């Protein structure tokens, strides 16, 4: 017996959907307009600087997200299982960093610490001074602390969210605390945190232009420089917008790949 439901379903090509196609066509048209009608001759002079700025932005995102995540794991963990004297400072750190603008933190670090340091001769005479005199260490530290505070909260929730039964099973089979953490608790918390981390890392990318305010040359600061020197406003801004979008897409892909691990149903991986 055949029913109308069994009529051959026509497979629709998803990329032909109006919803996907419209923005693609719009972007192509806009790109063509921009290429033909706007001025791009400055690129010849500025591309080495642009590349340098781009390198700094990429480095900032990768380094501060990685270091920030390494800090975030203990910050989240001690708030769930740690003794009070560790949990409270961790909690306070998250509250303060998340409660103040990143711009302010960068300025306090760079202008505050940066002007405090030279007053101590032992710092000024130290081997580190040539580095501490520059702006980029403060940018890296500021962005790392910011990421650590936000992700510390994410990991706190992720650690808490792992069901107690999962840890019971680990204890019941004789795992030590460290082994339980390494084999069961951390991997499961990571999996829970992953979707949030992807979004947060994109936010981290978009926070990087703030470092331009403490004289670090990132990709945004190059655009600002082009505007000052050539009086072209939109061309450099449009270009770096496209660059930021591409980087955000790349971050999404990296995290999709990371959280895809251990999900597939067939692969039995050696650990």
């Amino acid at each position: 017996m055949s029913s109308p439901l069994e009529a051959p379903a026509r497979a629709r090509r998803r990329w032909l959907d109006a919803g996907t196609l419209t923005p693609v066509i719009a972007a192509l048209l806009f790109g063509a307009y921009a290429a033909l009608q706007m001025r791009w001759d400055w690129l010849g002079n500025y591309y080495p600087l642009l590349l340098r700025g781009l390198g700094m932005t990429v480095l900032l995102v990768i380094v501060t997200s990685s270091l920030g995540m390494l800090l975030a794991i203990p910050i989240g963990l001690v708030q769930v299982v740690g003794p009070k004297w560790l949990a409270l400072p961790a909690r306070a750190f998250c509250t303060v960093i998340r409660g103040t603008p990143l711009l302010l933190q960068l300025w306090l670090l760079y202008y505050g610490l940066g002007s405090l340091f030279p007053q101590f001769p032992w710092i000024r005479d130290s081997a580190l001074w040539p580095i501490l005199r520059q702006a980029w260490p403060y940018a890296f530290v500021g962005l790392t602390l910011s990421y650590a505070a936000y992700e510390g909260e994410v990991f706190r929730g992720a650690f808490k969210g792992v069901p107690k039964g999962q840890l019971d099973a680990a204890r019941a089979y004789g795992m030590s605390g460290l082994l339980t953490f390494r084999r069961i608790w951390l991997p499961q918390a990571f999996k829970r945190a992953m979707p949030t981390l992807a979004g947060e890392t994109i936010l981290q990318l978009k926070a990087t232009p703030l470092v331009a305010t403490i004289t670090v040359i990132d990709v945004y600061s190059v655009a600002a420089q082009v505007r000052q020197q050539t009086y072209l406003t939109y061309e450099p801004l449009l270009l770096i917008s496209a660059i930021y979008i591409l980087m955000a897409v790349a971050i999404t892909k990296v995290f999709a790949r990371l959280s895809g691990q251990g999900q597939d149903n067939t692969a039995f991986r050696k650990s």
Partner: protein
Amino acid sequence: MEMLHADGIRKTFGNLEVLRGVSLTANKGDVISLIGGSGSGKSTFLRCLNCLEHPTGGEIRVDGDAIAFRPDGHGNMEPASKTQMRRIRARLAMVFQSFNLWSHMTLLENVIEAPVHVLGVDRKQAVDEGLRLLQRVGLYDKRNTYPAFLSGGQQQRGAIARALAVQPLAMLFDEPTSALDPELVGEVLKVIRELAEEGRTMILVTHEMSFARDVSNQVLFLHGGLVEDAGPPAEVFGNPKSERLARFLGSFH
């Protein structure tokens, strides 16, 4: 040969006395069922045996190895030697009511986890043994599947394979079928019955009265944190000495 001996186990949570001195001896091949109403302390007792709950008082001996205790600072006792406790736990395999298979690992990874990482078994050997155990509980085809994609009955059979993988001295079952849909209970009981028949030492907290009657050689009825009645199943079920037990058993008909 004595495998597991618990003597006078007490446990209080704050002011609540959950266990008021429960004792049990399991010799090799014994299948002991713990029955009782909810709140009678039977699950807590089971969890005290491998110290997932710190008992307040009492003694525990596993395969002749007495667990050394010290005060844990909360009015209970904790194992004095973590190494000893881990060694004992690794050989007292537990099967949980809610399965508790590790959700980020495939079935096979679950089964080989404790042998490889706790007992130090060679990985290849653990995989061979794990596959054999999965075959045995009828889940060979699901070896690379994550727990979330399995039915409750399959998860519990997988959890039993995980328990068998550590070559346990005794197996602790904490209401292994209580979280299952009725039509899935049978497949799990069948596996447990086979284990009982091959002479495994098992302690079983259960609400499946007819199953307890069939498989066990000893039944303990707990009430209010005490053993109210105990003996061979024919006696306990056929001729309950305590009125409470009679009423409890009556509630299942």
